[in-house]
Structures are given as C-alpha cells and as structure tokens.
C-alpha cells in the first residue's frame, strides 16, 4: 500500500460489494424463482426471498420437465451436454497435442503449410460457415449424433498454438537425454512432454469444458430429435413454451441446472481457469 487512507479503503470495499451485488442479482432472482411453487410465480410482484419448494421443483425439472413437453425431464439433456463438452475438450486437446508435437519436434516437408492451415481455423468461427458445415455433416450422416455435435468443433488453432508455446519452453537437453537413453519420438512424447505439460493440459481442459458445455448455435442446427437436445437448448425450448403456460419456477430451475457444472468448474478450479484464460487469450 502506498499510503494509508482508511476512508478510501472502506469506500473501495463498498463499491466492490455493490459491484458483486449487481453481478449476482440475476442469479439471486433465478434461485428465488426456482424455489417457489408455480402458482406463486404468476402473481405480481414476484417474490424476492426464497420459498420452500426448491427440491420439489428440482424433482419436477429432472423427472418430468415442464408440462406440455415430452415428460422426460431435463436429466438426459444434462447427460448430452456432458457428453458433448467432454468430447470437445478431450478431442481438442488430443489432436492439438499431436499436431503441436509434430510441428515443434519434426522437420518434414510441408511443415509450415500445415501450420498455416491450422492457423486459418482461427478465422472461421462456426457462426460464419453454418450452412455449408451443416451440409457436410448431413452428407456424412452425422446429424443427431454425438460425433456430429462434437467433431466439427474440435479443430482449434488456439490450443495448438498454446501447446506449441509450451513445447518451445521445454529445454532441448531433455530430448538429447531421452535420445541417449534410446527413447523414440512417441516414447519421448508420452513420458516427457505430456507429464511436463500437465498443468497446461488441465488449464485448457477447464476452458474447453466451459466452451463445449455452453455451445448453442451448433447443437441447435444439427439436432432435430429431442433425445439429442442439450440442456442449453432445453432452456430455449421452455421459454418458447412459456408464452402459453408460464412455469417460471421450472424454467429457472433448468437455467440453474444448466449453469451449475461450468460455474462449479470455474469456482473450484479457479487458478487453472485463470491460467487457461490468460494463456489461450480466450
């Protein structure tokens, strides 16, 4: 601290608490709405304090969902989201590790060509090529499958760049030593490179899990069967239904369920999350 100004410090705390309150307000309102019975959520003004129906609503959301929907609840949607998020995160990390290893540790023809080809993916987010990508996936028969949900999203220049950066900081002596001991390239990759980039892999996993879980546009395009819906899509579906029968307690419970896994990941793996965010610049 530069100088002691207790009043300014108190003022800083007040401002920060206000800021936290503004940020947390939507979540509080969601939590409150998820803990009241359906009837209460149609009476103006809506409650600002939690009620006693939280677990009842949780049960309804998980086992039945909203009335007027297929009656299967949102549990399977959470499993779909989990499968998609895991496949995207693991897939991205695996193919990026391999290609970064090839580009940093091997001299081979077309090396820079491949590097630039990977770089280009940075410039083609799914939003700008939705129609043709949809056609490709449809032609490959991957609509309404987990493969179709995840594979088109797993090519990533940022992950490859990050691992390239990590590998470049690993001392050359390690490779020399490994070679003297008679280790081949793949042995070196598994026994030295992977253990040495463990924290980077974990940090990237945190970021990619959140990215995968929150995907919306892509699943919206390629799934038509309700059994393949993700939880994030479930919210939108409920909001549409809400125009006829408002069941805000169930919708907000679903929103709560949809944000719980990624938020828990951020809070409980905060240092990895921050590391991942600053290293990949997103």
């Amino acid at each position, binding site marked *: 601290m530069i100088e002691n100004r207790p009043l300014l410090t108190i003022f800083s705390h007040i401002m920060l608490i206000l800021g936290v309150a503004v940020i947390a307000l939507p979540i509080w309102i969601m939590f409150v709405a998820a803990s009241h019975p359906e009837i209460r959520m149609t009476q103006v003004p809506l409650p600002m304090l939690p009620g006693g129906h939280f677990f009842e609503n949780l049960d309804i959301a998980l086992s039945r969902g909203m009335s007027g929907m297929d009656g299967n609840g949102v549990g399977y949607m959470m499993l779909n989201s989990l499968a998609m998020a895991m496949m995207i995160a693991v897939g991205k990390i695996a193919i990026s590790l391999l290609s970064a290893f090839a580009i940093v540790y091997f001299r081979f023809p077309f090396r820079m060509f491949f590097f630039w080809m990977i770089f280009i993916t940075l410039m083609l987010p799914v939003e700008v090529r939705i129609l043709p*990508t949809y056609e490709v996936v449809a032609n490959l028969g991957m609509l309404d499958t987990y493969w179709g949900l995840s594979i088109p999203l797993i090519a990533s220049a940022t992950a490859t760049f990050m691992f390239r950066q990590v590998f470049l900081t690993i001392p050359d002596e390690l490779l020399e030593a490994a070679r003297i001991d008679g280790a081949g390239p793949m042995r070196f990759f598994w026994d030295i490179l992977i253990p040495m980039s463990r924290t980077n892999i974990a940090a990237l996993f945190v970021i990619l899990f959140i990215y995968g879980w929150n995907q919306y546009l892509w699943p919206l395009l390629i799934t038509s069967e309700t059994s393949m819906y993700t939880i994030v899509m479930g919210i939108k579906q409920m909001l549409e239904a809400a125009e006829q029968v408002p069941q805000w307690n169930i919708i907000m419970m679903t929103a709560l369920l949809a944000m719980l896994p990624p938020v828990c990941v951020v809070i409980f793996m905060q240092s990895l999350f921050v590391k991942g965010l600053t290293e990949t610049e997103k």
Partner: protein
Amino acid sequence: MLKNVHFGPSVLPFLLVLPQIIVTLVFFIWPASQALYQSLLLEDAFGLKTEFVWFRNFEDLLSDPLYWDSFKITIVFSFLVAFLSMSFALILALFADRVIKGSGAYRTLLIWPYAVAPVTAGALWVFMFNPTLGIVSYALSALGYEWNHQLNGGEAMALVVMASAWKQVAYNFLFFLAGLQSIPKSLIEAAAIDGAGPMRRTIDIVLPLLSPTTFFLLVINIVYAFFETFGVIHVVTAGGPAGATNILVYKVFNDGFVGLDLGGSAAQSVILMIMVIALTVVQFKYVEKRVDY
C-alpha cells in the same frame, strides 16, 4: 519455431498432424470454400435451378437497406456491449487492486458469470424484464415507466446489451486486474511522493500504462459481441421487434435456415469472414505489444 534438436524425417509427423488436418479440411476449409462458391450462385425458390451470377448476391446485399440496418445495429450493439462491460470491469478492477484484504474473494465472486452460457444469461434477463411478471419491469412501472421490450426497439436493444455485457464483465475484470497488478509499484510510489493523490495517479499513470490491456480487450469484446452473442439474441428478442436487434450473425442464421436464401446467406457469411480475418490480424498485430502477465 522448430527446435534446434529435433527428430529426423519420417512418416510419423504426417500421421501426427493428420487428425487435425482432416478435421480442418472437412469441417473448416471445405465449408468455407463452399460458402465462397455459393455466394456466387442464385437458386430459385424451389431449389430446382441454380445459376452462376458472379457478384450479384453481393450487389443485392449491399443495396439492401435491411442489410445496412443490420450492419448499423451490429456496430451500435458491439460498441455498447464493449463500453458497458469494460468500464464496469475497469472500475471494479481499480478498486480491487486497491484493497489488500479480500481481493481474492472479490475475484471469485466476480468471475463466475464467464461460465454462464449466453442462452442462460438471456433467459435470466428476459425473466427479470418480462413485461407482465418481471421484477425489474414491476419496479420500473412503480416508478412510472412502462417497460416492454417486445414492442419497443430501444428497450429490446438495451436488454440484449445488458445481458451480453453482464456475461463479459468477468473476462474484462480478470484481465484489467492482471494488468493493474503488473504496473511497477515504484512508479506509483514516486508519484505519491511527489504529492499526487489516488485520483491523479489513476488518471496520469495507471490508465495510460493500462492502454495495451484496454486495446486488447476492446478487440476481444468486439469479437465477442459480433459472434458469440447469438444465444442472447435468439432467446431475448429473436432479432425483433421489427429487426431492432437483428445483428449480422443472427441475420445469417435467419436468412439461411429460416428464409432459405442460400446465396444471400452465403454472401453474408463471406462478408463476416472478411471481418473476422481483419479482427484477427489486428489482434495478432497488437497482441505482441501487450503487457506481460
């Protein structure tokens, strides 16, 4: 780029890059080239006949006042999202950098909205501002203001901006705080000895030294507002009322999948691609000059 000590030529490196190259070719480069090609085609309403029309889709697009409206809306939207979330985050980061006790706790409490999906964020805000039931619209009507974003375009814009900015504050806060903490303490101390108060030091020393972070975040926020807010728009307003929140990404989706105008949608995709490329170049050019964390 390449290690001084490396493995000799063999077939192995090709096998290693193969998975990523296949995915890139099949799901990125091929669709992007298809978009380029389709943008030069005109398909009739029943999809029976396609005609090669050179740049007519682009000419149609650029002479379409609706497209320019969407363009203007996107610019206004991105600017408002970037400005709102960055200024809010900067103010909080300045205070958090000052307090010693509890800055970690504040960080935890401020960063988690990053993990909330745009659709979820949209659902929360649309619930709070629901014209008949919402808590905020109830409070506003008690103050004598009737909120209805389903009818009023300006209110619809305000709502999508708030929902999008709310989610992005976390990211900006994290980077601003890291930027502030990397400013050498000796500079601040020197200014304090010269008699500069906290306000003066912030304006004359801290903010200028923070400008690389600010610029970096500006680019990131614009990219975010351009491409990642689709979920917010889809849930909150669906581009309405009367196209008041129809941003470019939403228009590509709407014209392509709902309106089935393939050529026009592809031409819009191509224009968006050019914008992403420009933004990526800007980002990479200035990222090097960014402060180190």
